[in-house]
């Protein structure tokens, strides 16, 4: 009995599924990385595969481009600093003061994330180009000379990056602020310290470790940023590593080995940063984000509320309303200027966009892909989250590293590895939409697993253990206890994956094929190849479609969620 019982346990459904899912994740993630590394160390003839010689020469060539590394660092630092300032200020206002409309603003803070950074870059390009930018045209009309802002500079790039990729800083800092014990501040004020003094002497130091963690995380993200640098930097030959890689691959002949070396070095730096970040966050002596509810004391700031309200509105204006308005303004003109003549207005751009069947098929592909990615994603990532954080299967910790790996690799670099990896794969999925599906599932692993795990960890283990003690086998438990309890989290993860999929650029741009065009890279192609007014129109259409899809989905899931609770 003992032998069979033991072996029955060894091959239980749990283990099979657990290891199966782990194997899938490992293949998805490590297979492309292998190819990336292989290309980086390949010093033989680029045309010959498999590589004939390995060495470090490519990295030596890398040293000839110090400016690119420097640019990357400058832009990333600047963007991180700006994102932290914005994030901190907004987090403090929304989490700690009684500014009116707090709940609404908190929801709205996520909107810049939904608008892709590409859209932001396009819009700000139209606003801030030294010659043709609307802001500068207005400036000159008001009597200014030359230009007020030049968005095609490193700080311009950093500004747009901070606006559109920095909202994660807000989320992290707000979470830190919300999990602070308010009695610490109360102690300070009881002694008689002013609000400002309290904020500087008590709040700030308590929050600093969490902010530091956020800083490192955001910096790692900025290192891998692509869309903004592409639109705003490339015209002035201002390259960062990601756009340099893209250019190197697009050249003829493509300089794959150098691109791979660049990608690998970027990957190494990001990996290091994220490693440091995790050490800080899991050290435990810092304020951690738990399910324990501290209700942070919301300060009454009196008249200041309205000023702060204005600040929030200003941020939303700049981050959301202005870009969309700009694109709208441009899309209805023949040649977009700040002060158009009456005959400059036209709906031709929309007509042209509607008739381009590339657009239609790209949108359809994107929607289908997003749907598939989200649906398959929550199953795969749900099982992975369970495997890593709940099962006791040996090796689960290792899988966590594998799953979080893609976070350390910029999407473009990852796709580059995938391009090679899946090109030589015997099953012909290269150039098809299946490749994009695989790519999305891979690069979204950290996002999905983290989101689902967050919810999963809030579910007390004892709820599942109790089901065990009542005699329920693993699949029964999953069905009757785990999944229903996870449902709200799974739905949230689904929506997140859907949006992420629709706005994806870095991986898609390299892996698109003739039958598998998707919308965001198509907008980039349009920017390269058509008039900017048409590009603006496409960007607006994409935003509109995503927004419409989101509204529908949220309505549906709300109804589904209500049903589940019944």
């Amino acid at each position, binding site marked *: *009995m*003992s*032998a069979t*019982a*033991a072996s029955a*346990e060894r091959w*239980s459904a749990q283990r099979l599924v657990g290891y199966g899912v782990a194997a899938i994740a490992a293949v998805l993630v490590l297979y492309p990385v292998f190819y990336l590394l292989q290309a980086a160390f390949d010093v033989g003839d680029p045309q010959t595969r498999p590589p004939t010689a390995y060495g470090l020469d490519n990295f030596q060539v890398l040293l000839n481009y110090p400016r690119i590394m420097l640019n990357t660092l400058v832009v990333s630092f600047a963007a991180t600093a700006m994102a932290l300032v914005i994030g901190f200020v907004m987090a403090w206002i929304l989490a700690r003061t009684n500014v009116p409309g707090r709940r609404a603003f908190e929801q709205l803070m996520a909107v810049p994330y939904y608008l892709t950074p590409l859209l932001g870059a396009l819009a700000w390009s139209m606003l801030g180009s030294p010659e043709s930018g609307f802001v500068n045209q207005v400036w000159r009309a008001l009597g200014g000379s030359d230009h007020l802002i030049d968005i095609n500079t490193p700080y311009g790039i950093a500004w747009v990056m901070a606006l559109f990729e920095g909202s994660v800083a807000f989320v992290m800092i707000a979470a830190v602020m919300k999990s602070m014990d308010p009695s610490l501040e109360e102690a300070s004020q009881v002694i008689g310290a002013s609000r400002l003094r309290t904020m500087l002497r008590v709040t700030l130091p308590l929050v600093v470790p969490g902010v530091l963690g956020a800083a490192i995380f955001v910096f790692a993200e900025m290192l891998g940023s692509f869309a903004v640098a592409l639109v705003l930097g490339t015209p002035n030959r201002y390259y960062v590593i990601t756009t340099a890689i893209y250019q190197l691959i697009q050249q003829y002949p493509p300089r794959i080995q150098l691109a791979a070396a660049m990608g690998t070095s970027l990957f190494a730096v990001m990996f290091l940063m994220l490693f440091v970040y995790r050490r800080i966050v899991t050290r435990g002596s810092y304020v951690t984000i738990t399910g324990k509810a501290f209700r942070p004391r919301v300060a009454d700031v009196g008249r200041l509320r309205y000023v702060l309200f204005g600040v929030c509105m200003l941020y939303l204006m700049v981050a959301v309303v202005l870009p969309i308005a700009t694109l709208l303004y441009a899309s209805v003109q023949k040649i977009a200027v700040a002060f158009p003549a009456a005959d400059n207005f036209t709906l031709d751009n929309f007509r042209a966009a509607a008739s381009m069947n590339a657009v239609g098929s790209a949108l359809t592909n994107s929607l289908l892909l997003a749907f598939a990615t989200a649906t398959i994603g929550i199953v795969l990532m749900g099982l992975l989250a369970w495997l890593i954080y709940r099962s*006791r299967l040996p090796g689960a910790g290792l899988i966590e590293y594998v799953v979080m790996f893609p976070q350390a690799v910029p999407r473009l670099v990852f796709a580059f590895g995938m391009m090679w990896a899946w090109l030589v794969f015997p099953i012909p999925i290269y150039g098809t939409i299946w490749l994009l599906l695989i790519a999305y599932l891979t690069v979204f692993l950290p996002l999905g697993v983290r989101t689902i795990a967050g919810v999963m960890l809030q579910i*007390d283990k*004892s*709820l599942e*253990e*109790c*089901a*065990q*003690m*009542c*005699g*329920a*086998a693993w699949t*029964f438990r999953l069905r*009757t*206890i785990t999944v*229903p*309890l996870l449902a709200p989290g799974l739905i949230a993860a689904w929506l997140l994956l859907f949006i992420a999929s629709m706005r994806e650029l870095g991986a898609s741009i390299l892996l698109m094929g003739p039958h598998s065009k998707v919308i965001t890279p198509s907008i980039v192609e349009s920017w390269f190849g058509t008039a900017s007014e048409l590009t603006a129109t496409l960007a607006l259409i994409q935003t509109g479609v995503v927004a419409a899809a989101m509204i529908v989905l949220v309505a549906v899931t709300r109804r589904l969620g209500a049903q*589940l*609770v019944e």
Partner: protein
Amino acid sequence: MPTTAATPHIEVERLEVHFGAVPAVRGVSFSVMPGEQLTLLGPSGCGKTTTLRAIAGLEHGSAGEIRIDGKPVYSARKGVNIPAEKRGLSMVFQSYAIWPHMSVFDNVAYGLRVRRAGAAEIREKVERALGMVQMGAFADRRASALSGGQQQRVALARAFVFQPSVLLFDEPLSNLDAKLRADMRIELRDLQHRLGITSVYVTHDLEEALAMSDRIVVMRDGLVEQTGTPDEIYALPRSAFVADFIGSSNLIRGRNRPDLAADGLIALETPSGQVIYGSAYGRPVGDELTVSVRTVHLRLSPQRPAGERNVWPARLEKTVFQGDFTQVHVRWGDQPLIARCAALDPLPAGQEVFITVDPKRVVLLGA
């Protein structure tokens, strides 16, 4: 009271549980007779919950063996580890683990549904179980809308509705307020008797353990300190730890004075020269001895009481009013002693008093 049945229902033999490098349970052995309630008692971190969870199958043992009805459910040597859902046990959790997305009825019915019971059978058993915990009226309520005490009763009903042979309790009352806890203690005990289910109960609360258990296993640092009935543990602690954990105790060290021993009693001389008579209770008598005197067994009087043995003068240092009793701190030679007396008239500090204790209440510590 359990009968002296031959085969224990549950046997734990030299169980060890390690979490990575940390040993939570370092070699624990005990057995539970059918129908008995055995309590694992100890301070937090002593390994009692881990031991319980190992019996349940929620923790994986590292060494040793656990047998239920003579069959190993875990054995390191034989490579057996039956998963929790197949051991046929049942458990009440500290946090109640009530499933918020189901009604009270569905919560309780879960174990029966797992066992594929028919609808009629389920209805009958669930209603009976809910009735036994006085929650019959709440069957259709949303489980998350209950108070703590109510959730706990539902958890209880859920645990025994499918008639398991063993019930495991992981500090089920510690989340309730004191008054409710006291009442629930009695209810639980009655229920356990009525159902006759073998129970293993974990708590850090001494009163609970003493009130509810047939036998108690006192644990510390992953090891068993002493096993016995509540009476035994209370009256005859084996170690200083047990003596002071179970109720409050004065520990007196001294040299053995075999020359003064008489009437089957042992005699100790303290470093300050006091002689105290005590009982060995079969424990080995060495040269250096430690005895335990419960604070409630020390009697105080302003005049010298009658009797020869174990009467000493002492100086009163302070009294602390504690409601049902007063704690009196005296100085006896060099050593401070504590006595707990039923409410006394206040005595001034510094007064000389006499303390006395029955030698049978002076217990020699030792294996």
